[in-house]
Each structure stands twice: as structure tokens, then as C-alpha cells.
């Protein structure tokens, strides 16, 4: 974990990118894409998260251990969502067997 110091212009650039992405989210929402709307909105949110985590939170310049714990948090959330959805998604499937 180095005490890496980023130049101010990096912070500003990230901030501008975040604002552009915010505008993009709102803009895309105006267009009706059906199921793709949510995909697009969440993809943008993920990109924003990456920007904040990597630069504002300095993870890009942190020890690998920090990377692991960042990953672990999101991975466990995925477990919770994915495995509980196995139930909700498949409840109306045709019955097993025969």
C-alpha cells in the first residue's frame, strides 16, 4: 500500500467523466430500449463505481490485499442476488420430471 499521490488534474478528469456518465444515464433513459434500459443504466453505474473506487479511493495504487477485499464485497453481493434469484426465476418453470 503505497502512499501514492495523484495529481489534482486526475481527480478533476475523473470528476468530469463521472458527470458525463451521469448525463449519459439520464439521456439513455429518455430513449426506450426495453430491457436494454436497465442494462445500460447499470453498466454506466458500474463504470462510475470503477472510476470512484480506482481513483478517488486510490485502489488503483493500493496493495493487492485491498483489491481482494473490494472484490470480496461485490462478489458476496453477487452470491446473494444470484442464488436467491434461482428460486424466483424458476418458480414458474414447468414441473420437474416425467
Amino acid at each position: 500500500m503505497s502512499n501514492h499521490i495523484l495529481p489534482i488534474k486526475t481527480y478533476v478528469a475523473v470528476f468530469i467523466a463521472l458527470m458525463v456518465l451521469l448525463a449519459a444515464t439520464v439521456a439513455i433513459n429518455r430513449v426506450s430500449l426495453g430491457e436494454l434500459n436497465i442494462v445500460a443504466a447499470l453498466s454506466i453505474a458500474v463504470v462510475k463505481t470503477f472510476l470512484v473506487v480506482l481513483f478517488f479511493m486510490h485502489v488503483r495504487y493500493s496493495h493487492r490485499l485491498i483489491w481482494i477485499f473490494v472484490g470480496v464485497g461485490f462478489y458476496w453481493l453477487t452470491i446473494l442476488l444470484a442464488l436467491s434469484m434461482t428460486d424466483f426465476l424458476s418458480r414458474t418453470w414447468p414441473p420437474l420430471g416425467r
Partner: protein
Amino acid sequence: MDESPAMLRHQFEDASQQRESAVLGMWVFLATEIMFFGGLFAAYTAYRYQYGAGFAAASHHLNMLLGAANTAVLLTSSLTMALAVHAAQVGKKPAHIAGLLVLTMLLGCAFLGIKAVEYHDKFVHHLVPGASFVWEGTLTRQAEMFYYLYFAMTGLHAIHMLAGVGVVLVVAILAARGRYTPQYHNPLEITGLYWHFVDIIWVFLFPLLYLIA
């Protein structure tokens, strides 16, 4: 070592061990926080899958502009927070660091203010789940579930914001007293991590709640 020994707690060997522990501790805590919100995200996912139409209808009653404005406010506050940490890293004057923190705090308060306006609006329009919930249209139950999740998720987020504003206030006072130097600014750094995290939660709440096409 050049750190002030008063800042080094007895269980640590040196300042870098102390700093790394503090940062790791905060990240572990944030992993906990992800799962804390995770329960609500799971509920949201399950119900949105089942009640898509009702969620969309209910979402239209949220003020998308206010939501977007709040996102912008929070992202800006993240910038000022990052700059405050940066200022401490490069050894700016205490007033400079404290100023950025106060700015962060004010932006946080602005967020909460806008949120309060929205909440008030929902109260006025009887969109608070419970006995007083009134829904003009079909799919009442689904809309109520949406608003329940809306209040639960944004409410939990707002509680985190309130806590964040409080902590930033304390850190700002300490910063103004010149406690943070390029060698030692652990409390400031981990407060920053927390602040950014709360920001990220909102980055997801905004599209999930406000932008249901």
C-alpha cells in the same frame, strides 16, 4: 521515523503498519456495508422481477430531475473529499484541508436537503407505504412495494449520509487544528473511503429507483 510518536498507538510497530491497518479495516467495514445494503438490493431484485409493471408506474412519480441533481451533488462532494485527502497528502495548510471538508459537508447537507424535499413531496401525495398510502391507478400493491423499497433504500442511505456528515464535521475540526500532516492523516483518509462508498451506493440507487423506463 518522522511521524509524531503521539499518533502511533502502542500495539503497532510503526506508522505504516498503523496506516495500512486503518485502511484495510475500513475496506473490510465497507464490504460489510455492501452486504448490509445487499439485503435490500436482493429484495429489490426479487420484487422488481415479479412486479415490473407496478415498479415502472410507481417510479414515474419520482422526480427524476431532483434525483439527477442529487447524483451530481454527491459526485461533486466526492471530488471535494478526494481533494481534501490530496491536500493533506501534499501538506497543505490546515485551513485549506478544513475548507475542502466543510465544502464536502455542505454538499452532503445539500443532498439531504433535496432528499427531504422529495420525502415531503411523497408525504403530501400519500405515497408513503402504510395505512395512508393512496395510489390512483392499478397495481396498488406493487406500487406500494416500490415505495417501501424506495424509502427503505434511500432512508438507509440517508442515515449513512447523516453519519458521514457528522464524521466529516469532526474530521474538519481536527484538520483545522492542524492534526493532519503528510505523514499522518489516517482518520481523514478512511473518512474519505466511507464517503466515496456512500456515494457509490447512490450511483446505483439512482438508476434503480428513478430510471425505470
